[in-house]
């Protein structure tokens, strides 16, 4: 007993002050990309050629956050002159078009579906479906339940049964072998329901684009309401998206 109490004191109070206060992530963290439109074209071409995800639109000088894995190669090659990564983790979007960006991201709150706010603003129960994710996206959703992020304080929970949930959160590039299970889980969620795509994989196939075993984009199977880019997205990115979209 004494030991339990001693540990309790040592551990202290750890819950994050976000969203009341802003938090700074480590200097090397790569959050919202910023495109510098005045970069010379040859530099843009060079970045696009090196980008492992072919996420750079050369003509329009835009970056496709749905494909990007935030590896930072473009930033290095251009020494930040074409693309630089900010430490801003609040970059999720509600419309697919917004994924293709120059870094100015429309406010998520303005594009959130208002009826969802009314329905789920106070209580949101989500069913997570891992559809061939590498488990990093899953892990960074899972940690929202730890004391640091403490998702439950906002009335949001991950639940065990789709029957008890208001929507699904999908990670992974939806393998051929998981497609049916995913669609069945979606069917089992009572209407009206929300679909959230987390990670480059579920948005575009991510690193596994081009494999016949996967699906390139959840939106080809289900209507997606919220896109959370990343590889994986930082837990705070997930938290921000959920709060702004539903609260």
């Amino acid at each position, binding site marked *: 007993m004494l030991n339990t109490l001693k540990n309790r004191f040592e*551990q202290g109070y750890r819950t994050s002050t976000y969203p009341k206060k802003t938090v700074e992530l480590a200097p090397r963290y790569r959050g919202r990309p910023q495109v510098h439109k005045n970069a010379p074209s040859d530099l843009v071409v060079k970045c696009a050629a090196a980008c492992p995800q072919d996420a750079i639109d050369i003509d329009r000088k835009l970056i496709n956050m749905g494909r990007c894995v935030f590896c930072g190669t473009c930033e290095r090659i251009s020494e930040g002159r074409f693309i630089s990564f900010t430490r801003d983790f609040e970059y999720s979007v509600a419309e697919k078009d917004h994924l293709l960006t120059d870094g100015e991201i429309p406010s998520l709150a303005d594009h959130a579906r208002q009826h969802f706010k009314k329905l789920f603003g106070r209580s949101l129960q989500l069913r997570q*479906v891992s559809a061939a994710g*590498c488990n990093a996206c899953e892990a960074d959703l899972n940690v929202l339940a730890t004391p640091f992020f403490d998702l439950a304080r906002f009335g949001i929970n991950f639940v065990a049964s*789709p029957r008890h949930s208001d929507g699904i959160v999908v990670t992974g590039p939806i393998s051929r*072998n998981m497609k049916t*299970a995913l669609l069945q889980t979606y069917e089992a969620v009572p209407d009206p329901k929300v679909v959230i795509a987390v990670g480059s994989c579920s948005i575009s196939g991510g690193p*596994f684009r081009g494999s016949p075993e996967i699906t390139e984009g959840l939106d080809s199977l289900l209507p997606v309401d919220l896109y959370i880019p990343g590889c994986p997205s930082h837990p705070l990115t997930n938290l921000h998206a959920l709060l702004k979209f539903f609260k």
Partner: protein
Amino acid sequence: MDTDFLEISNGQALSREQIPHLTFDDFQKNAMKIVWGGGKIVQYFGYADNSIVKLMAVLRTDKLLVAGCDAPNEYPSLSNKCELFQLFEREIAEQFGIVPKYHPWLKMVRYHPNSQGKKDVFGNDYTKDIPGNYPYYSVEGNEIHEVAVGPVHAGVIEPGHFRFNCIGERVLHLEIQLGYQHRGIEDLILKAAPKRLPIIIEGIAGDTTVANGVSFAQAVEALASIQTDQGSHIIRTIGLELERIANHVGDLGALSGDVAFLPPANYCGRMRGDFLNMSLLICGNRLGKGLVRPGGVRFSIDDEISRELMRRINEIEPQVEHVIDLLFSTPSVRARFEDCGKVSTSDADHLGLVGPAGRACGLPYDARRTFATEYYPSIDIPENAKTTGDVFARAKMRAEEILQSISIIKSLLKDTIETNCVDSEVFNLPSSSFVVTVNEAWRGELSHCIITDTEGKILRYKIKDPSFHNWNGLAMSLRNTGISDFPLNNKSYNLSYCGYDL
């Protein structure tokens, strides 16, 4: 031991001519001789070379041994003589349509058609929805009942199917069927642009990002004769150990949660985050994505970061020690951990368990000691081995490794680390070459193997996650165990679905 296999070292590039190409008969006789003498299988796989299917095996004693042969269309299964082959034979059957006749339980591994357009060995039609659609092993009797779980589980975890045959609460047999996570990684690597490879590799299993990155990088470096500096070895070693700690800490918390002792569950959940944030500090990603590339590392640990890491580790070390002490000194925890899900040393040896799961059963093998790479040759890794093979031993093993890893990182941070960072350099691989790398990922032995063709293109990329060896350990743990102890046992192993499914 005198065999026709060639002795090689870890991460040694060979030209393919150097590898003994035996007749299948000699190949299997020699392989059996090695495994009967206590050898284990590191890799055993098929590959198609100008439409001829060949086999390649890398075995280990305290050395690595390699040989290959042409694959017969069918042959009497080796699994009947040695259990270690069973899953490898099934994988070869699935990938290349080679039939191991009289295999004791020939079923698919990942539910996909073979690459040779041959008739499916399992009689599946892959245009139909196949997963889970297969006659599971079943026990018959009046009071027997089956419990089916998955692929979609109750928690935020990956998919897989578990079929329990029980009498009352007692599990007689657990059959695990995976494959839901199959993304076709090995085939994708063959056709993807080289610039994509590091990203694909880091997506094999997110919780093993660094170990996979290192295994890939070492293979490419060996083949392309790329030199790496000492600093990059140190940083990779730190990355590997941080990965080990974060996963072990998280799992101890999950184990504690499963026996309803919530304080350590919460503390460990939070502390795991602190270790992930150390990776974030080094490379900007909590899982270590983007840290390792062929040629070295993409991020340095300069004095400022080094000091900050040291500060954080010094701060968290006593907390970790105290929570571990709390966990293992709580009688209700010990009562649930001890004697639960036992695997005997002999069973573990027959199954070929690796990593902490194997060490918990008294198999001391640790690739950091036996086939040391990176900075491990200069580090004294203690010989870890428990013998009880229960949840307690697996948990305790992990707890001890956490503390050892913390002290390894501290010792590595003592001196200034100098390295020339690399990015995504283009590399050209030599023609007709072979390399295998072995590393101790947090779950155990991880191995990558590359074979190139006459033009230096990758002909075969083979990945073996430690979970490939260990899933049957979990099934074995469940024998005669109460079904309610499944979650506890499952977390004591915490095996990889995606690493296995590829």
